[in-house]
């Protein structure tokens, strides 16, 4: 595990990271059940095995920093502070949802927490996040902006356009790439020749750093530096977080057709939550157990509240197109 430069409150800070990770895990477990039971519509893209990246990354951000994520980005959304109850209600398509049930899980959006949108289109939100950075620059603000995407997203042209402009204009941007080695069922080596993704940044002159994405402290550290640099007006950073989804691409993919059992097992042995528990040590076992229990409760409460909440009103069908 990386050491962390957060001055005091070391343990408290770490327990906060841990809480985010288990909240994400608890949520995913509950959502999986809901999906199996037919209570959750649509695709469910989980981040099991990748919990350390959102926890570490968002710990380095302020509420007013902007960011965009993908269909797999609910962990970031929660870790950034967006209300769990609103998020869950949205995922379940309720009137009480963050987006009134109109967007669902793929389109969670809450600018009051800087969340400029999850996205269903690969690369679709990369430019949006750079727009947040542009606004910060225009405002002479020290806000930074982050976009999170996967390894496969570097093959989408839009991503390159956005990278180039962020570098050209020296914007306070963090490109956080979760390299989980697969884009859907396609291994990285079948989608690009240059599989060290940091090398790709030579095209833009963007500082690039690779990090152990299964270590929340390591992620936090590189993010903290990138954020600090951005706040000082020193331009964008690309972070490649090496990680792995131990689950499938989405709820109907066991993830085993295109990956060997050995590979999956190897990464499961590195899964961030258990690994971080080991790092935190036996002396904190009671705290960890409590956090787990609390988070399961919080998630259950959010789900139960959402299930009890009304569906959107049909009268609102046409609303929200234009203001």
């Amino acid at each position, binding site marked *: 595990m990386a050491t962390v430069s957060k001055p005091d409150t070391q343990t408290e800070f770490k327990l906060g990271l841990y809480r985010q990770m288990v909240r994400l895990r608890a949520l995913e477990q509950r959502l999986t059940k809901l999906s199996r039971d037919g209570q959750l519509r649509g695709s469910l893209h989980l981040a099991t095995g990748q919990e350390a990246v959102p926890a570490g990354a968002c710990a380095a951000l302020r509420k007013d920093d902007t960011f965009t994520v993908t269909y797999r980005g609910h962990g970031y959304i929660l870790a950034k502070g967006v209300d769990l109850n609103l998020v869950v209600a949205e995922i379940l398509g309720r009137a009480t949802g963050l987006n009134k*049930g109109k*967007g669902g899980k793929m389109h969670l959006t809450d600018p009051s927490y800087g969340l400029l949108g999850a996205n*269903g289109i690969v690369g*679709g939100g990369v430019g949006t996040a750079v727009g947040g950075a542009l606004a910060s620059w225009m405002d002479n603000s020290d806000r930074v902006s982050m976009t999170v995407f996967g390894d496969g997203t570097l093959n989408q042209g839009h991503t390159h356009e956005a990278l180039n402009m962020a570098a050209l204009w020296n914007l306070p941007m963090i490109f956080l790439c979760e390299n989980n080695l697969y884009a859907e069922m396609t291994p990285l080596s079948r*989608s690009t020749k240059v599989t060290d993704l940091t090398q790709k940044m030579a095209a833009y002159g963007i500082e690039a750093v690779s990090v152990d994405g299964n270590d929340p402290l390591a992620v936090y550290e590189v993010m903290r530096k990138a954020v600090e640099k951005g706040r000082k007006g020193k331009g964008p950073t690309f972070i490649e977080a090496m990680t792995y989804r131990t689950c499938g691409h989405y709820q109907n993919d066991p993830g085993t057709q295109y990956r060997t059992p050995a590979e999956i097992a190897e990464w499961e042995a590195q899964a961030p939550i258990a690994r971080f528990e080991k790092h935190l040590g036996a002396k904190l076992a009671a705290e960890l157990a409590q956090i787990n229990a609390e988070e399961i409760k919080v998630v259950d409460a959010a789900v139960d509240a959402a299930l009890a909440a009304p*569906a959107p009103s049909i009268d609102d*069908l*046409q609303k929200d197109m234009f203001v």
Partner: protein
Amino acid sequence: MSTVATETRTIGYTAAISEALHQEMARDSNVFVIGEDIGHFGGMFRATEGLLEAFGEKRVIDTPISESGFIGIALGAAMAGKRPVVELMFFDFALVAMDQILNQVAKAQYMTGGMAKVPLVIRTQGGGYKGAAAQHSQMLEALFLHVPGLKVVCPATPADAKGLVAGAIRDNNPVLVVEHKQLYGMKGEVPEGEHVLPLGKAYVRREGTDLTIFTYSYTLHLALQAAEELAASGISAEVVDLQSLNPLDWSTIQASVTKTHRVLIAHESPGRCGVGADLIAQIQERMFDELDAPILRVTGGDIPVPFAQNLEEASLPSVSRIVAQAKACLE
């Protein structure tokens, strides 16, 4: 066009497509498939299952997530003598490749005075009803009718899927084949042997006398159910599967309008500048005097497809909406 079918059996819509691909790739070594997760994985919806094993990696190309890039590549390969069949995983993703589809592929033949030959097929699947939300539920066929240069077909049954995919591959022009995610689970009778349908034909799927419902793709099945319900109310609805949106089969359309004099059009994509509007304009231009009433429509809403089930259902065509509008046509 030919159907050398010894007999039929019941298979699924995607299996039928897969059969057409196997059949056409075996017939013509210039045919190849290209797209995301179609080879090693066999396709997100299994339509390309077994092709890699059967035809090898030079004819079954797994791509990165680069729709604009690989559609451009397919175009170049077509101009160099190949017959590419592109799989675009969701219709919604066409929007990242619109320059390639509409400025390049669609225009190449005309603007080169025929020097470019573009026998290129794009297969994709669209449509809602599954809670896939605004960016994974669209039917965008109207965009590809408005900008000229593509043939567009929408198979509504497994047999049509097999026949139209084969027909599209044999056609020497760029063809967009629009499948529907709701149909992927559908089973039906499909000819076993070679089965190739012509592009440009509409079919009367149910005869009727009081009004005609023109429709296509998944909505056809809603319209057929609606016709059943209408029959129970003593209304005889003819249901025509347009199937080919470009070119349109005017003789079938005209025959039905001339017979019923009342028309309803049902489709899932939005109404504004949609297929229904297009048909209305042309029908009233060609046979105004045949019409006893305004042509009505049941279309998807003029809003992004909402996620919540009740909103999504309210925004898309349903049997009950078709029944109600059919009755309104007769008022």
